[in-house]
Each structure stands twice: as structure tokens, then as C-alpha cells.
């Protein structure tokens, strides 16, 4: 087993993902403790070399192949498995994004290598890696140890690396399997932009599962109307079709930073918090006093949202009509 800390550099449409700087910053720190190097892995179809030399790493392994023109899980797994077997790092860091969810588990199973998912902290303690993981929808943290392995890391868990680096860029020959994939990339589709842009709104009244049904969304709409804001939603509400997908806040939706965010019946799964925790003023209404949403809210109440929303709407309407 080596001492290096490997980081998969995620990128889309020619741009390096924010996670790369966060993971590389941590990798440098951990490599300091293991006596190894922070090694970035960049899989690309030609544009990567200019980006490679700017990465905050000690070394960059650059693999160029047309299969990496877009993210194809199969191609990435083939390349990473070969690299991990060859380099035998102490730890491999992958962002817990769609890409990471596709790769980390597959590599773990194929290589019988331990995996910590939903990782929010990492340290080296003597001979072992100590990792903290968010489980049970963020209600509990698990502190685990592993001799070596893979960690899929939650966005924002670590501050981005400061400054660039002067990494040694090493070209790695493309793996044979990349020419015979069972997957084909058909296309990338950008989101429709016909609906409101919730990232540009100052006031969001956001509804979650606790709103109970599509017919109750109106209660939030009335408050939004009174405040001059718009209604947004957590994932289950968008999935159920009660509000359009364009209104979804969170990891797979939009990241929002409004001046006011009122979370109604939203428990606050880590994926949701990732998209709204930087709002200026957060008010949470949820009957479960242990709901993680209260960890990020500034003010909260466990009173029933079906009582609070109409009462609050009435107050705001009264205030605006007086003014």
C-alpha cells in the first residue's frame, strides 16, 4: 500500500467542477500526514492538459481518450480501476455527486477496497484513515476507520485548496477496454428556462413533503404573493409533480442564496441543505423538532404549517396594506 492520496477531478462541458479544489485541498493535508503525494486524476479527450498544470496537486495523471468526451460511467470505471491497481494509493477521494455515486461503489466492489460514502470529514490517525459519514438522512454521523480505500465526499465538506500548484503532469496510456464499451453517450440536455429562475429570487417559500398534497401548495403561494417571492420545493415535491422541476432546491436542483428562505414541511436531508444553507435568513416550520433543517435555520417552529402559513400571510398582508 502506498501513501499517496488520489483525487478524481470531475469536469463537465469543459469546466472543472468545484469539488476538485475541495478534494485536492484535503488531499494535500492528508498526504502531509502520510508522507505521500496529492495526485489528481484527469480523464479527458484532449482539452485537459492546459487545465492539468493549474491543479493544486503534486502530480497529475492525465489520460486522454475520446471515451472521456462526456461522462460515461463504464469508461471512468475502466480507467480508474487500472490506475488504482497500478498506483495503490492510501486513499482515493471522489465527490459524492452523480459521478461519484457511479464510480465509488463500483470500484470498491471490483477491487474489494473499503468505501466510506457521504463522507464529511477525513483524518489520518497512525496507520488508519478515520472518516466521518452522514447517515440516516443526516440524523446521525458515523465515525469509522479503514486501513485504506475510497471516500465519496459530500460537497462543501472541505474548503477549496488555496492557490494553484505546479504539479508534474504525467501522461498515462489509455486502457484497452476503452475501445469496446457497452455504453454510448447520446446527449447532454440543459434545463428549460421558461419558468422562473429561483436562483435570482430574493424570497423563497419552499415546500417539502409535509405540505401533504398538491392542493396545499396554494397556502405557500399565498404567502409568496404577499411577500413578493416565489414558491420553491424540495425533491419529493418536484418528483411528485406538485411543482415543476425548475423550482427544486438542492443537490440535484438549484443552489439558492435568497435573502429569505422559509422551509415549510422540509426535514432537511443533506442533499437539500446543500442547496440552501447560505440563504441570509432561514425560517423553518416542521413538526419534528429533531429535523436537521433546524440545524441551519435561524428561526424555527414546530407548530403546524397549516396554521402558521395562513396566519403569517394574513399578518404580512395587513402590514403591506397599512404601509
Amino acid at each position: 500500500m502506498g501513501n499517496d492520496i488520489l483525487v478524481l477531478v470531475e469536469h463537465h462541458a469543459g469546466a472543472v467542477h468545484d469539488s476538485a479544489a475541495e478534494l485536492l485541498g484535503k488531499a494535500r493535508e492528508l498526504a502531509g500526514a502520510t508522507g505521500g503525494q496529492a495526485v489528481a486524476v484527469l480523464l479527458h479527450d484532449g482539452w485537459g492538459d492546459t487545465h492539468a498544470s493549474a491543479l493544486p496537486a503534486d502530480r497529475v495523471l492525465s489520460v486522454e481518450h475520446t471515451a472521456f468526451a462526456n461522462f460515461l460511467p463504464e469508461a471512468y470505471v475502466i480507467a480508474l480501476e487500472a490506475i488504482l491497481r497500478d498506483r495503490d494509493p492510501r486513499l482515493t477521494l471522489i465527490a459524492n455527486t452523480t459521478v461519484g455515486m457511479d464510480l465509488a461503489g463500483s470500484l470498491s466492489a471490483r477491487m474489494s477496497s473499503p468505501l466510506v460514502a457521504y463522507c464529511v470529514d477525513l483524518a489520518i490517525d497512525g496507520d488508519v484513515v478515520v472518516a466521518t459519514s452522514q447517515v440516516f438522512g443526516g440524523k446521525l454521523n458515523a465515525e469509522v476507520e479503514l486501513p485504506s480505500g475510497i471516500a465519496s465526499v459530500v460537497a462543501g465538506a472541505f474548503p477549496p485548496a488555496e492557490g494553484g500548484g505546479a504539479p508534474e503532469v504525467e501522461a498515462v496510456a489509455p486502457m484497452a477496454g476503452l475501445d469496446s464499451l457497452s455504453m454510448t453517450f447520446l446527449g447532454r440536455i440543459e434545463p428549460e428556462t421558461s419558468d422562473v429562475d429561483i436562483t435570482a429570487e430574493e424570497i423563497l417559500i419552499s415546500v417539502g413533503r409535509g405540505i401533504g398534497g398538491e392542493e396545499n401548495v396554494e397556502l405557500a403561494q399565498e404567502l409568496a404573493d404577499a411577500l413578493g417571492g416565489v414558491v420553491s420545493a424540495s425533491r419529493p415535491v418536484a418528483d411528485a409533480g406538485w411543482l415543476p422541476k425548475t423550482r427544486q432546491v438542492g443537490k440535484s436542483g438549484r443552489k439558492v442564496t435568497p435573502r429569505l428562505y422559509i422551509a415549510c414541511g422540509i426535514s432537511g436531508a443533506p442533499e437539500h441543505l446543500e442547496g440552501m444553507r447560505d440563504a441570509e435568513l432561514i425560517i423553518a416550520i416542521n413538526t419534528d423538532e429533531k429535523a436537521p433543517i433546524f440545524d441551519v435555520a435561524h428561526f424555527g417552529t414546530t407548530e403546524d404549517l397549516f396554521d402558521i402559513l395562513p396566519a403569517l400571510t394574513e399578518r404580512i398582508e395587513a402590514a403591506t396594506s397599512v404601509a
Partner: protein
Amino acid sequence: MHIVVPMKQTVDLVEELELNDEGTDIEREYLTFVSNEWDEQALEEALLLKEAGGGTTVTVIGLDETDVDQTLFAALAKGADRAIKLSGDFEGGITSHQRAAILAEVVGGLDADVVLIGVQSPEDLDGQTGVLLAGLLGRPHVSVAIAVEPHDAGVKVTQEFGAGVVHEIAVTGPAVVGVQAARQAPRYVAISRVRQAMQSGGLEVMDAPDSSGDAGGLTIRRLYAPEMSSQAEMLSGDAEDIAGRLAQIIADRGLVKA
């Protein structure tokens, strides 16, 4: 096309989670278990594929976990063709690696064209079952799918990324797909129809293969409730009082427009 949908019973997160004496696992004995919501999405997507025709059949498979019969019979009532329960002692919980190893052995013998499985569950400390299963089976996989549709000799998977961007990927040959959301909300089935399914039986019971192998390689030091980073100021009183306080807080920030 033969679709296999593994279904997992998971802790109902609405409940308060208590830790065991060692602080290394949750106390499972008195908890309520429900069908993993993402597996229900995978089942819905499988049923939509079946309804699209072409002789597609759907097999659901579950480990003998608390209330799994309810989940499997509900799947039959919704339209699954076959339900398999793998008997064994799973009450103490098992890791995703152990679950994937059991499923790999069984699914390997079911001649599945596609495995649709929930993209995650709340207990995936050592990774998500679907992608581990794909790794063990040596099959390609796509995670975070929001649509799976027939395409040439295989399927077209719509894979979701952040900020509403999606990719479309064609997959030929047997594959595993981790479903985030079905193309429509999971269908409702009346309890009377679940009872009907229970009365007509049809649950196949098989012994689960040995799961004592690779458990994932993690040693749990402790579980703990995360410290609250900025605990909310909780407002109490009746709804009118609270609404009044909130209106004031919002007004103080200059957010109430005349």
C-alpha cells in the same frame, strides 16, 4: 426484457433513532421499517417499462427484513410478475457490501436484462447497494436515473446531474441502473388489493446465500448525533403568536414591501 428490482426495508426516518449500548449501531428492535423510497421509484419505473409492452416481466426480490412481506405483496398487487423473499437472519442489519454479495449470487441466476434499484438508502455508510452489485456482477451501471426507456437492443437511461442538467446514455447488454426518480410518482395500491395478493400467495421463498464474506472493511468507532452548527431559535406559543413574531422578524429585515 426481464427486469429485476431488489427492494430493501429501511428505518423509518420519522422515528427517533436510539443507539445501542456500544454506540456503534442504532437500536433496531423497536423501530418501524418501511420500503426504501428509492426502491419504490425503481419499481415504478420497471412497471412503466412493463406497460410499454414487448413482453417485459418484472421480478421483485427482498431479504427477510421486518415487514418485507408487505412490500413484496404490494409490488405484486401493483403489477410485478414474481416476488422472491430471501430467508435468513437480517434483523441486526447488514452492510451494503453484504447485501450486494447476496443479491449478486441470486440475480446472477435470474437471467436479468436490467436490474433497477433505488439509487440509495438512508443506511449506505459503505456505499450504495446497486453500484456495488454492478461491480460484483461486472456489469455496467448508471446511477441517479430519472428515466429508463427501451432503446434498440437495450435501454436509454436519463442520468441527472446538478442544476437540472441531464445526460442520455444508451446501454446494451445486461446493466444495473440506480433510480433516483421514476417518470411518474409511484402508483398507489389499495390495501384491499395487497390483502388479495397476500391471500393468493405467490411469494417464493429461497434461502439467502451465505453473506459472511466481505462486509465492506469499515470498523465503526461510534455513531453520534451531529452537533448543531447554528441551532435555530425556536418560537413557541400558539400559531397566531408565532406568526406575529415571524412577521416582525421578516419586517425587521426590510423584507415586507409596501
